[in-house]
């Protein structure tokens, strides 16, 4: 009973916070609404006994939204005083499309003949996940790790303006590097 109440409470929070993302008139509120929605879903995942994934969702998304808020302030120039944000375009199509999609998905969710549970619950879900990750699917996960590292590097390269030639000179021999502000390691 308690589980059901908590689940529905979290569901309401998750969806309303999700709606708030596109309704509120401030960037900070938008990104932290999304963070709240993620936290609610993370807690629901905890209710569904997937502790590791649930906690991970909370961890990653709060961090990401903290960065997101800063991004939005940098690019869009917002402060708490400037709460006028209407960045909607093409709302005419977006609303019916998304309502349609919702009806379709909801119909599927409610009327599809979902199978009853097959297999048994592992004793320790987290340990089972770890074994699964590092056992037969280790190669896949290692590949995911490499992809993520590559993304970080390429993301920085894409976004950065200064290259190593700007820092170290044309022959890459200038030491210390010509940075606008020196770093802490003294390269």
């Amino acid at each position, binding site marked *: 009973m308690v589980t059901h109440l908590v*689940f529905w409470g979290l569901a309401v929070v*998750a*969806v309303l916070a*999700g709606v708030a993302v*596109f309704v509120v008139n401030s960037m900070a509120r938008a990104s932290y609404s999304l963070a709240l929605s993620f936290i609610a879903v993370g807690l629901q995942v905890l209710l569904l006994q997937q502790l590791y994934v*649930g906690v991970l969702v909370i961890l990653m998304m709060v961090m990401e939204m903290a960065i997101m808020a800063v991004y939005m302030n940098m690019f869009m120039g917002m402060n708490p005083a400037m709460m006028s944000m209407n960045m909607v375009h093409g709302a005419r199509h977006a609303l019916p499309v998304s309502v349609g999609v919702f009806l379709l998905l909801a119909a599927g969710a409610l009327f599809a003949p979902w199978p009853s549970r097959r297999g048994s619950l592992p004793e320790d879900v987290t340990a089972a996940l770890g074994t699964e990750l590092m056992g037969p699917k280790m190669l*896949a996960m290692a590949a995911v790790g490499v992809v993520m590292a590559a993304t970080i590097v390429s993301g920085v390269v894409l976004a950065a303006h200064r290259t190593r030639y700007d820092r170290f000179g044309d022959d890459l021999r200038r030491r210390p590097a010509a940075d606008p502000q020196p770093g802490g390691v003294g390269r």
Partner: protein
Amino acid sequence: MTVRTVLLVAAALISVGLYGALSQQVVVMVMMGLELMLNGLILAVAGLWWFCAPDPSGQVLLLVVLAAMTVEMAMGFAVATSLHRLRRSDLTDTAADLSG
């Protein structure tokens, strides 16, 4: 809390996210829409796993979704920054070079 209710909530999250992704003008807001859709996806996968087939490989899928989210965010931020640098703008409409 049954598989139907969990999926219903997930459907609501996905639709709201879709609305955002379609309607927003700013790159970062479009990304937030996509994030919200993935949020719904996480809930749906977690629900299906728990109610239908609780063996560990399903959770691996969730981790892959999370990784995909990270990649999406990192690339999104990079693209937004580059777009901003080049165009002085962060609106999706101005980046329509490849649209027919």
